[in-house]
Each structure stands twice: as C-alpha cells, then as structure tokens.
C-alpha cells in the first residue's frame, strides 16, 4: 500500500494505492475504486474504473478515462489531463503555487515568469502600491509582449525583474505583499 497526499482544486486528498491481482485499488479519502490501468506511453494512461457499488446489488459501472500526466515546468506540479480538461495536481506537498498566485488570497503573491523570455519593461518600483490586475512586468516571448499582472492589491515587496534581462520559466520576478 502506497500513500499520497494529493492537492487538487484547493483541497488535500489522501490517496492510497494497492495492487490486488491485476487491478489497482485506489482509496480516495474513504472511498475505494478499482482501476484497470493500461500505460499507453510515458505520459498517457488508460483507466477503466469500477466504482464500488455500496449495496453490491448491481454490477459496477466500468467508466473509461484517458488521462495524460506531465510536469509543469513553471510550478513543479503535475498537470493531469482528464479528457480535454487540464487539472493541476500537487503530489506530496508540491504546493499549488500557481493557484495561490492567481486567486487574490491574503498571502504574498509571488509572480514568476511563466515562460522563458526577455523582460522588456518593468512597470513598478520596489515599494510601489499596486492594484489587482495592474500590469507589473512585460515579458516578450513568441513575438508577443505579455503583461504579467498583480493578482491582488498590495505593495511591491520584492522586485527581481530587470529590463533587458532574459529569464527562465519559473524565475521569481515580483513579490506583492
């Protein structure tokens, strides 16, 4: 039995995985499902999932899912594609930084470069007051200038972006507090 703490959609779920014969029994919080897993390639799984029927009166529904799993360079999370829907998932404490940044929560907002590119403009100075959605830094990548905006009202607590500088994905640019 292998245990995981998986953060998804702002909640931490406890997941246990056990092999039973050819199948995997996956316990999500207090509910167990049986999954037949076919690995299609390194990043694609086909799952046929029996949802355990509490009464045992009818055959379980064998629901088929095709999922893709790939790391997200900018956040270190896994992006799980369930059909066309990408779901950001943090396994065992790899915190969902991106969601925290996007939602204007109370904590400091750490604004990182979402892609490699060049800083073409820095629109704030350290200590400046900023409003939610105010553009802070302009990064040029893929021939377009992309504005990175504040996720919340606050002050520019840290400023690491310098005009003309090339940055890698995930590089910390601004902290708004």
């Amino acid at each position: 039995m292998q245990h995981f703490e998986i953060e998804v959609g702002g909640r931490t779920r406890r997941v246990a995985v056990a092999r039973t014969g050819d199948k995997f029994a996956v316990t999500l919080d207090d509910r167990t499902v049986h999954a037949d897993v076919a690995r299609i390639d390194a990043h694609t799984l086909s799952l046929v999932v029996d949802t355990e029927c509490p009464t045992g009166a009818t055959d379980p529904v064998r629901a088929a899912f095709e999922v893709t799993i790939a790391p997200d360079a900018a956040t270190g999370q896994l992006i799980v594609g369930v059909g066309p829907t990408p779901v950001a998932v943090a396994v065992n404490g790899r915190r969902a930084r991106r969601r925290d940044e996007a939602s204007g929560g109370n904590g400091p907002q750490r604004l990182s470069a979402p892609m490699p590119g060049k800083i073409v403009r820095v629109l704030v100075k350290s200590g400046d007051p900023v409003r939610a959605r105010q553009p802070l830094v302009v990064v040029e990548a893929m021939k377009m200038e992309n504005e990175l905006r504040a996720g919340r009202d606050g002050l520019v607590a840290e400023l690491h972006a310098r005009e003309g500088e090339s940055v890698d994905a995930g590089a910390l640019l601004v902290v708004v507090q």
Partner: protein
Amino acid sequence: MKKILIANRGEIAVRIIRACREMDLSSVAVYSECDRSALHVRLADEAYAIGPSAPRESYLRIDRLVDAARRSGADAVHPGYGFLAENEDFAAACVGAGLTFIGPTARAIETMGSKTAARGAAKRAGVPVVPGTEDPLGADATSEEIAATAQSIGYPLLVKAVAGGGGKGMRTVVDPSDLASAVGAARSEAATAFGDPAVYLERELPRPRHIEVQLLADHHGAVVPFVERECSIQRRHQKVVEETPSIAVTPALRAEITSAAAAVAKGVGYTNAGTIEFLVDENGRFYFLEMNTRLQVEHPITEMVTGLDLVQWQIRIARGERLDVDPARALTPTGHAIECRVYAEDPDNNFLPSPGRIVALRPAAGPGIRDDSGATAGLDVPIFYDPMISKLAAWAEDRPRAIARMRRALAEYLVAGIRTTVPFFTWLLSQPDFAAGRFDTTYLDGVLKAQNGRPFVEPAAGVEEMAAIAAALHTALSPARPPANGGSTGGRWKTEARLEGLR
C-alpha cells in the same frame, strides 16, 4: 516547375509540402537550429539549415533562403504566411535569382502590404475604407502633432503598424492621454515584428464584424472571389476562430462584398492568392480594412466548403495555368466549416505562451475533421516563433452540426507537456452567444474580461477525483514498464517491489 523551396516552418510548411507531393513536385525545407527535428524537415524531400533560431538570423534571411534554393536546384519558392511572405524585397530577390515566386508580384506586395497605400487602392476602386490617416505618422512627428491628428479622426481609435498583421504592432486608444504610450508601444512592437516601426491611425468602428474575401487571380486577367470567411472571434486583434460562410452575410451582401474585393484586386493587377479584409458595421455596411497578399492561416475552411485546393491553385497559377474555376462554385459554400487555432498558451493564465516539450499528442480525427499541424510528440514548442501548434477545422452540413463536430474534436484532442487553448475553445463553443452567432470583433475581449481570470473549464468534482487517482497511479508506477497490461514478469516484480518498498 519541378522543385519548390518552402521558405517557412511549422504547419504551413507541412501544408505546402503536402500540396507539392500531391502534384508530384519535389519539396525543399529550410530550418533554423531549433527546428532540426520539426515535422516539415522530416516530411520534405530535401532540407537545408539556414542559421540560428532567432527569425532574423534564419527564416528572415533572404540571402540564405535564396542560397538554399540555389543549392537545392529549386525553381520556385513558396513563402507560406508570416516571415517573408509579404516582403516585396524577398519576392524580388527570388525573381532576380531566376526563381518563380509563388505569390503576387513584388509590386503588388509593396502596394497592398503598406496599409496606407492599400487604403488608397481601395478608394480608387470605389470601395469604402475605415476613416483614418492617409499616410503613416512621421517618424519625427511631435506628440502634439500626433494628438492633433488623432483628434481629427476621433476616439476610440487604433494605432496600427503600416506593415502590420496578426494584431502585432496594434493598440487601441480610448483615452487621449494614452495615445503617446500606445504609439510608442506599437512602434516598438512593429519594429520587432516587421522591421518597420511606421504606424498610422484609424477610427475604431463600434462593434464591427470581421468579414474577409479570399481571392485567386491568374496571369490571364481572371479574378475569382470566394465565399466570405468570418473572423470576428479575436483576442487582442488576433483571430482565434474562423468560420465560413458567415451567419451575418446575406446573399445580397455576399454579392456586393465579393464584387468589391474583386474590384480592388483587379485595380492593382493582383495575381495569385490574396485576401481582402473588411469590417461590416451593425447596419451591414462594409469597409475595406486591408489586404493580405499571401495565403491566409484560415484558408482550410474555404477549401472545406468549396472543395478547391488553394495551395495547389497558387502553384498552378504561378506556373502560368489559367484559373478555370467556376466562379459560382467558389461563391457557393457546401455546408459549413469552422477553424480553431490551437495555441501553446495557457488560457487560464491570461493566455501566456506555454512553450516546452510536447510529451504526448493525439490530434482529433474522424469525419469532417482536418488538423493542420506542425507538432508531434517529442517536439519542443520553441520560444522564437508564433506559438500556434495546430489549426483544427471541422466541416459539417450546417453550422450547428459543425459546432457539434468541433466540440467532439476538441474533446478528442489529446496533448500533454504544454498548455493549449483547447479548453478555452471547449468553453467558447458552448456559449449561447457563439451558437446564435451574436458576436463582433469586441465579443471575445469582452467575455474574457468578464471571466476575470476564472478558469474556462472548471473541473467537475468527479474530474478532480479522477485527476487525483491518475496522479497517484502515475507516481506509483513511474518509471516502471507497463504494469497491469502486458508487462513482463520482471516489470511487474519491480512494480511490486517499489510498491512494497514504499509501504
């Protein structure tokens, strides 16, 4: 004509290679450093390296492209779209080197490629244009002079690159106090994207629809306009969804607007493929916007509803053939087609580019679906070029069925390793306003603002649970070989050992 050099990359290079092969012509690819593994290099008959990844050092280097043509013995050059497709110096250099340029003449590119000169050509053909400056703003014009010009045109207005296209080098100005910075930003973006910082001002029409007319014109005087395409679904002036025919165009308007387009083309002696873009106001009045003197990104939907191959016709026209296309066929759509431009962008993060390695990719297929793509699993989406990875197009008998088919195709489109705009299209195509055709060029920016950063596809609870289960299984199994299905005894043993070891 026996061998065509394709001076481009990505999906459009692949599209042109396909036409070459169907016509029994040899194809020559060119590639920059980061494109060595790109699909167009793998599919072409020959391939030549033309320099470093930055476009200015490779795909924009006329000398290296002409040299590659010479080395390969190509007798013609197809420029695709973007890069040098609308560069008159390139067209002239090709002709000067004895190559057939598969496109209009350098002179036509020069006339229509300058937005201001093109507006003059439309006026001379008796076609109304959007009010704006006759000439580019002077490079040394003071901000006071620019402000006075702007005042005479009226706000809101657009600052547009004279050499522009694709929404680059363009800014909307609502408040006169934003004018100077908008002109500065547009000039800088235009200089980067087109090598020409010149901009002009144009009145912004309220709630227009973007309707465009594809044309083919041969060297014997024939000009054939095609049924209109509607490209009103735009984000920051960049088309993201196109369809044909337009729900807003009546047969009478179609007759008028396509005749106007043909008149503009005839007036400048245009040849080969081109597209005239119009804005149509709420009263059904249309205004010439600009002409694209090349193959359009969205040409596949026209091919789907007319059954005509525009790239093959470009090649046939360039080698002197007569355009023996029945004009009625070009103007009479069979069914309806929609295209979604799939970008490597994260729609849930302000559409920021999402370059990186595509680790898994299975495009949609099946009835009525066409996927024009340069992407494959194992490829990096480079940071140097436009992040469009695919054009997904759906054809069906009518518009509602085409929408349903596109939604099916989007649900089928599997891509991992990068974010794409697929979830955004899933959302957009389920909007009642889209289904009803209630939109104009301001529609998408408006709904994106209203969305205010909320994800387009909110995962249902069941989907989040499935994602958690999948992440756990993936982590438990990695990097073991196929565990539950066809795995060797050794592989299973290792999986077991790993599961036991982590107990």
